[in-house]
Each structure stands twice: as structure tokens, then as C-alpha cells.
């Protein structure tokens, strides 16, 4: 085995892992509070990518600077989706929840196709091509940025839920909906905010992903699948778990390149997924049942 290669793959895996964590974060948050799986998750990330793409090409503002704006836009989208659709299906049997959210994904994907066309868009960004060289290894700056911000976001949201009043209400609603209603928490509003917050993290993820890969309307499916694996690994509804799940997945996929062809990369991730599901169905770090 080539030590340089292993080191390089390890670094990349770790950085990619942070991004995977961020991709899973929103899904985990939404599931944790409402018990709903957002099947339109990947498409929301793609929306985030397009919004930051737009801001970049129309105003020349780099994705790192427009990050919060993108998050806010997708926050609004999430709020709208929750208040119009998800709040109505929250008490449905799970199978019935799938269809509206899958359909939402279909709608978002094709709206992107209508608005932005089918092309692969990958404009140059400020740090898009920068890399730091340490010995023989290369650290990709845009990946490093995404990694750092992913961790920062996860911690911020974690602290927000732990410390702030609103965060505490969200957690109360997540633990016991009826109880929360009894103590006067407006659960619908809490749901709207949590879904929107989860959506906002996907928007931020989208902005951070734009420098890393070309965006097309069809990209969302893969993100949804990655998010599933990450969230199952870390435990549904467990936010820090999502981060760790992402890191594990990123490392495993990247290091698998030492032995396996790239086409089997996802075999590694789904293999891990199934093994975890069978032996620790609630995730490595515990999750919501």
C-alpha cells in the first residue's frame, strides 16, 4: 500500500465527511423534531446550489459571502413547505408521508430544470481552485472551508437547541408533542421553524457545495441517499451523530479507493448502512426511535 496515497485519501475522506455530515444534518433535525423523513432533502440542497449560483453569476458575490442569504432563502422555502404540506401530513401513516415529499422533490427538480436549464453549471469561485500543499499531500481549500463551516453549523444548531428558549421549545415538541401543546407551545409554529431550520442547513450545504461540483437539476437524488446513510449511521435525530456519521462515511468511502474501484464506493456506504441497521438500528450514537 502506498502511504502517500493513504494519507491523501485520509485527508480527503475526513474533509468530505464533514460535508456529508452537513448534508445529513437537516434531514436528521427534521426527523428528530417531527418524525418525518424529508424525501425532498437532496433537491433542497440543489436549490441552495442554484440560489448561490445565481447570486454569483448575477452579482458576482462568492458563495462563501452569500451563504447566509442562501440559507435564508431556503429557510423561507422550508417554512412554506412545512406550513402548506408537512403540517397536514404529520399525523399520517408513514407510507402516506412519502408521496407528498417525493413529489415535492420532483417539483423542485423540474422547477430547477425550467429556471436554470439542464446544463451542468460550475462557475469559477474565489477559492475554487486553491489548495494547500503539506509535504506530498494536498488539502483542497474549498473542501476545507466546507468542512470547517459544516462543523461550525452543526455546533451552532446544537447549542441553539440546547441553550436558547426557542431551541428548548423545539426539543420539548420533539420529545412529547401532546405535552408541548399542554404547556402552551405552539407546536405548528415550532414545526415550521424546525423544518425551515433544517432546510436552511441544506441551503448552506448547497452554497458550500457549489465550488466543489457542477450543479444540475438532477443532482438531488444522490444527496438524499447520502443523507440517509449518514443519518442512519449517526442515529436519526441525533445532530452530533450526523456529523460523526458523515465523517465515518467520508473516510470509509475515500479509503475504500485503496482497494476497490470507484464504482463500488457506494457499495461500501450501503454495506455499512445495512450492517448498522441490523446490529445497531438506532445508529452508532443512538437516535430517536
Amino acid at each position, binding site marked *: 500500500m502506498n502511504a502517500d496515497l493513504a494519507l491523501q485519501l485520509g485527508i480527503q475522506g475526513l474533509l468530505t465527511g464533514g460535508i456529508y455530515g452537513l448534508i445529513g444534518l437537516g434531514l436528521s433535525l427534521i426527523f428528530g423534531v417531527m418524525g418525518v423523513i424529508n424525501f425532498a432533502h437532496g433537491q433542497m440542497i440543489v436549490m441552495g446550489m442554484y440560489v448561490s449560483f445565481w447570486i454569483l453569476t448575477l452579482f458576482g458575490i462568492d458563495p462563501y459571502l452569500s451563504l447566509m442569504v442562501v440559507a435564508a432563502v431556503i429557510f423561507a422555502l422550508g417554512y412554506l413547505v412545512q406550513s402548506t404540506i408537512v403540517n397536514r401530513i404529520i399525523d399520517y401513516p408513514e407510507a402516506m408521508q412519502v408521496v407528498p415529499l417525493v413529489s415535492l422533490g420532483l417539483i423542485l427538480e*423540474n422547477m430547477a430544470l425550467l429556471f436554470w*436549464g439542464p446544463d451542468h453549471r460550475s462557475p469559477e469561485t474565489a477559492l475554487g481552485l486553491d489548495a494547500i500543499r503539506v509535504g506530498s499531500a494536498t488539502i483542497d481549500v474549498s473542501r476545507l472551508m466546507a468542512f470547517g463551516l459544516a462543523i461550525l453549523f452543526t455546533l451552532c444548531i446544537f447549542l441553539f437547541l440546547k441553550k436558547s428558549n426557542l431551541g428548548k421549545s423545539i426539543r420539548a415538541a420533539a420529545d412529547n408533542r401532546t405535552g408541548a401543546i399542554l404547556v402552551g407551545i405552539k407546536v405548528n409554529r415550532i414545526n415550521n421553524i424546525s423544518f425551515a431550520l433544517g432546510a436552511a442547513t441544506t441551503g448552506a450545504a448547497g452554497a458550500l457545495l457549489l465550488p466543489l461540483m457542477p450543479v444540475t437539476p438532477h443532482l438531488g437524488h444522490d444527496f438524499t441517499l447520502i443523507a440517509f446513510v449518514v443519518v442512519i449511521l449517526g442515529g436519526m435525530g441525533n445532530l452530533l451523530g450526523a456529523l460523526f456519521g458523515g465523517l465515518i462515511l467520508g473516510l470509509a468511502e*475515500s479509503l475504500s479507493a485503496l482497494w476497490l474501484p470507484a464504482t463500488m464506493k457506494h457499495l461500501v456506504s450501503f454495506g455499512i448502512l445495512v450492517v448498522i441497521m441490523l446490529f445497531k438500528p438506532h445508529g452508532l450514537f443512538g437516535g430517536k426511535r
Partner: protein
Amino acid sequence: MMDRKDQNVKGMNRRTFIKVSGAAGLGLSLTSFGVPTLLRAEPAPIKIGSVQPATGPLAMIGQGQRRGNLLAAEYINSMGGIKSMDGAKLKLLLGDSESKPEVGRQEADRLIKEGAVMLTGPFQSGVAMAIATLCEQRQVPFVMDVAALDAITRKGYKYTFRVFITAKGLVGGAVKYLKMVTKEKKVMPKRAVVTNTADAFGKGMSGGFIKFLGKSGLPIEIVERIQYPLGIHDLSAEVARIKAAKPDIIFPVSRPGDSVILTRELYKQRVELMGIFCPGSPGWYEPEVIKDLGDLILYVLINVPWINPSSPVYKQANKAFLKAYGKYLDTNSAYAYTGVLVLADALERAGSTKPEALLKALHKTYYKDPPVLGGPVQFNERGDNIGAMTGLIQVQPDPDPLKRVKIVAPKEFAQSDKIVFPAPQLWERG
């Protein structure tokens, strides 16, 4: 004239449309508004069907091809329609395969029902297979514009033709040009990496290329072959492996998205190369890719069944395309354009829309001066176009990003007489 609705193509509002139609040829205004048409009874339009992946993962290419089909039909009509049939106009019926075989089949069936006498399309080989079998069942001629996999024409179907080059022809061209470049430049890469997307086309192409390269006598060793899934969004691990293999040259068989990721990653990880030589795949000549990659895409050599810039038909088509969509007509759209021209030519010679007559006419096709490289379009007994050939193109510096792609071989078509190889390293381009 086609239906208004048909022409309300994306990105084209009414006003630009009028301009485009004006540009599409003087003939259009004469036949549409001039006296002769008013006096003559308009014959019923001849319907032909186009099924392309207008939505789904291949929408980028599919919509481009659809536009190629549309502009070609418009061009034929502007030139007076099918003269042997009293100047009957072509009416292009559009179908969307959504990039799925079963939808492609159903759409093809719909177009046949709506009266399409011939079909064209559909870029993806799998969808092509579904439609080819349907056309065999329905006995409707099917002229594939692009779909490279040889398996389709090997089925012995009577109704299937292909304007695009065969995979064998494509691969043969790649090895031929590789020999030429190394001989001319007196450099020989020793170690090579082959990468490809793991789909029918990528696997078949790169496999064939490796086989041909082995037989060619070129002393190039394939030190690594990397296949990655279609639609991958991160090639960092793969490029790390490429770097570890220390290649002199990379032979990528790619799609538009991953070519961008690959090139940027090669830059970031500073993989030292003599150059990138694409044996024949999308991803290196599309206007968006050229724009997004900037300097990084310079000097990539691509073997591809390219457009023929000196063909008057191409010049006209490109002008119309550029005006309507702000992009040049690249190879896939140009082949889509050619497909409709070949259909029109068959109709012209058959003088009828009967399948037998059309089949006979298609078999006798000798379409001179197509807008793509190569000799006249002629079909062999399998239905493959024996006139199709590839050219070698290189992306070279030019202030106008739309003019960066230059033909460098064969010489009779060349737009630039110098080939840059080895290329400067990616990070040494200022």
C-alpha cells in the same frame, strides 16, 4: 410551417424567434409570405418524430439535440420542403424519453400514432434499443442521430439506421490520431491512465480503446483504469489514485459534469501530465464546459465525430443556433441536425411516406456534404453510416470562448495548423 407551439423553444421569445426564422434562410420568408405559396394548395405536412431525453439526468444533451432536430426541420421547410411531394413541409413531433427506456418507447409509439412516418433520436443507447425494437414491431424507419453502442445495429433490425459513428469507428479514430500526434511531435507518453464513467457508453468506449491501443503497437502502458459511476460529484479520491500511478497522459471517457470535476481536481492535486487525450466522449467541447473551466481546458485533445465548419449547411445551422441559444452547434446537436436532413433526403428520393419506399430510399442514401466531418452519409447493410468519421480537435486560446475549439486533424478540415502537445502543466498557465 410548423406549429407555433412547437417553436416556442426554451430561451427563445417571440421576437428572437422571428429573427431566427429570418436568419434561417431567405427562402423561409419567400415561401411563407411570398406569392407562390399563396397560389399553390398547401400539401399536408409530413410528420417525423424526435424522441430525446429532454428531462432527467441527460437533459442537457437531450435538449440540445431536440433543438438540432427542430432547426433542421425548419431549415428544410425554409428551402421549400420536400419538393418531390409538392413541397410538403416537415412537421417535427417531439417526444421526451425522460431518460427512461419505457418512457422512450411509449413516446415513440405516441409519435407513430400521431402520424410520424420516421423517427429520430434518442442519444441513450438503452432508449435507442427500446425504440429500435418498437420500430421493428411497427415497421417504421428509425434513424438514430446519436447512440454509439454497436449492439443496437448488430441486432439485424431492418428498420434501424444510425447516422452517428460506430463505437469501433470512434475508437479507431482515437488510436489513429494518437499515433499521428506522437509521431508528429516526436514525444511518446509511456504511462497512461484510462478513466471512464461506468455506463454502457463509457465502459464500451474505454474497453474498446484499451483493446485497440494494445494492438496499435504504441508503447503506451495502461497503468491504471478508473471507472466511476455516472453523475459522480467528487473525484478527489480517484485523482489521488491517478496521481499515485504517475501517468504521462490521461484518456478520459466522460460526461459533461465529471470532466469539469476531473480537470479541477487534477489541477488542485498538481498531477503532472503531458496532456489529456479524450478518445471520444462529451465533456470537453460543450460551450458551458469551456466557459467554466477557462484556462484549464486548454490543450485538451479530443477525438470526436465533430462538426464540419466548412460545410455551408453547418455554417447556416450554426448561425441559427447561435442566435437562438447563444451557443455554437456542437457535435451532438449537429448530428441531430444531420439526422433530420438525412430523413428529409430519404423522403425527397422516395417521394412517398410508405415504409417500404422509405426503407429503400434510406438504403440508397448518399447524402453529400453533411454538416459533420466525414464523407457522404451512406448506410451499410447493418444500417451504420460508413461515411462517418472523427476529427481531432483541440481547445486552443482564443479571445472568443465560443471559438476555442479548433479542428487540428485531418488536415483538409483543420482550423489550426499547430497541435500543442505536450501541453503546459495545468497550474502553469498564468
